[in-house]
């Protein structure tokens, strides 16, 4: 519409998640209006990230080395592995400063409707880690969605006899009022209530 190279930039931006054609257009014009070095800094950041960042050989988390800093950290508890769907989930759990074990990033959740099979996830790698290292507990921290629950069930069936398997609890958000909780969350919290 404007020039082939602007169209190309708009098309490339549209491929990003959550970016529609209008947002892509706005971003493209913003980039055009900024000084050249600013745009080039963005381009080289993209290039660098694809060049340097890879998946950790052990846990599948993002890293710039062969093995990520978490897996290398000897102060961490190497007998506990927390299984998550995506690298971004590692960041969330790390923010708590409560978990001191290792991670295992599956790279998604089982979903036959989307063609995601056990072989598409890093499940064999997890089994190998459990067998080869002295792992005592697996914490299943896949999302509390249908696909996340099914993935957790699939893993639990395979791990139960070899190691202690736990699942994150689901319930009420801390600091929230019961008044604002939806019926489904509140119902689940009620059925998962505990003795005091």
């Amino acid at each position, binding site marked *: 519409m404007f020039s082939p190279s602007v169209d190309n930039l708009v098309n490339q931006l549209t491929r990003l998640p959550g970016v529609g054609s209008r947002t892509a257009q706005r971003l493209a014009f913003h980039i055009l209006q900024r000084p050249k070095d600013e745009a080039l800094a963005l381009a080289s950041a993209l290039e660098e990230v694809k060049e340097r960042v890879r998946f950790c050989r052990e846990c599948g988390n993002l890293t710039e080395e062969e093995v990520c800093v978490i897996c290398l950290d000897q102060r961490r508890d190497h007998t506990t592995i927390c299984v998550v769907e995506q690298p971004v989930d590692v960041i969330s759990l790390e923010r708590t400063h409560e978990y001191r074990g290792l991670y295992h990033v599956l790279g998604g959740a*089982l*979903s*036959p*409707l989307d*063609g995601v*099979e*056990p*072989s598409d996830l890093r499940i064999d790698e997890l089994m190998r880690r459990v067998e080869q290292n002295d792992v005592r507990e697996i914490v299943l921290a896949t999302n509390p969605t*249908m*696909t996340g*629950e*099914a*993935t957790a*069930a*699939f893993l639990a*069936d395979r791990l139960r006899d070899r190691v202690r398997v736990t699942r994150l609890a689901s319930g009420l958000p801390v600091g929230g009022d019961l008044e604002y909780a939806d*019926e*489904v969350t*509140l*119902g*689940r919290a*009620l059925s998962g209530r505990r003795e005091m």
Partner: protein
Amino acid sequence: MLFVGDNGAGKTNLLESLHLATQGFSPRTRHDQQLVAFGTEGGAVELTVRDGEFVRRPRVVIPARDAKRATLDGVALPSAESLRRSFTTLVFTPDRLAVVKGGPAARRAYLDRVVSRLFPARSQLAQEYGAALAQRNAALRRVQLGLSSRDAIEPWSEQVVTLGAALVEARREAVAALVDPFSDNTGALGLGEGTLVYEGEALTSGDLAAKLESDIARGITTLGPHLHDLAIADGARALRPFGSQGEQRLAVLALLLAEIALLPSSPLLLLDDVLSELDSRRRRVLAERVSTIEQTVITATHRSALPVEPAHVVEVTHGQAR
């Protein structure tokens, strides 16, 4: 309250707008643009709802070429459907006869609606079960086509069994709650002794495993609550094949009244074209039964169709109400 007017005068439209303004959707269609009057761009419904001294103002707007929005007392709601948390509206339209005379899918959908009204914490159950089932079916087809191994079906069988068992339990609880008020209402409406029986057993993983080979061959799950039914009968006589049109109508009304008896608070009841096909004695019983409900709106072509004196009569002509 009685809405009177000739055929095509706009009585059902008025009723539909009451449903839209209190529940956030039409009982007739999910295509919201169909609700907007011909020749106009967008539309809105606003109500003043008085409950004792308490006044609430729900408002639903359907803009041209955009999704509908709702506010309650001027405060925007996350979705128009969330009005359901503030108001309960039950509706009878001639389409609802499908619950008695239609296929099992209509009865399952009805039962799941009752489940979500009676047990709000379990309102997502039917939807979740459906999602797990779709995943299992996809897994079955992928194994059939050689794209995937058998162990990929397993987690979905587990989900189908767990959610299926919970869904069957919720449906059975709903049926158990409905049975007595249903038979009480069929008795009063002169339909004899109404019975409701849930037809279907909770699924076990053993049952599902036994069917695995044939399920893979067919590419679908051939067992589970998605194939269950609700038997609606008058004594030993099933009403779907053997009931007359009038009896089927009475059965739907008895179900509706039974559901109302179970609700914690009195709902808004909308009865569209309910009086046709009923004799005068049954009209009277129905009118007396609904008079105990806080607010009922009935449509009819003639004032004389209603054997009791309504609190208000609204005459509808050519899309105008007064």
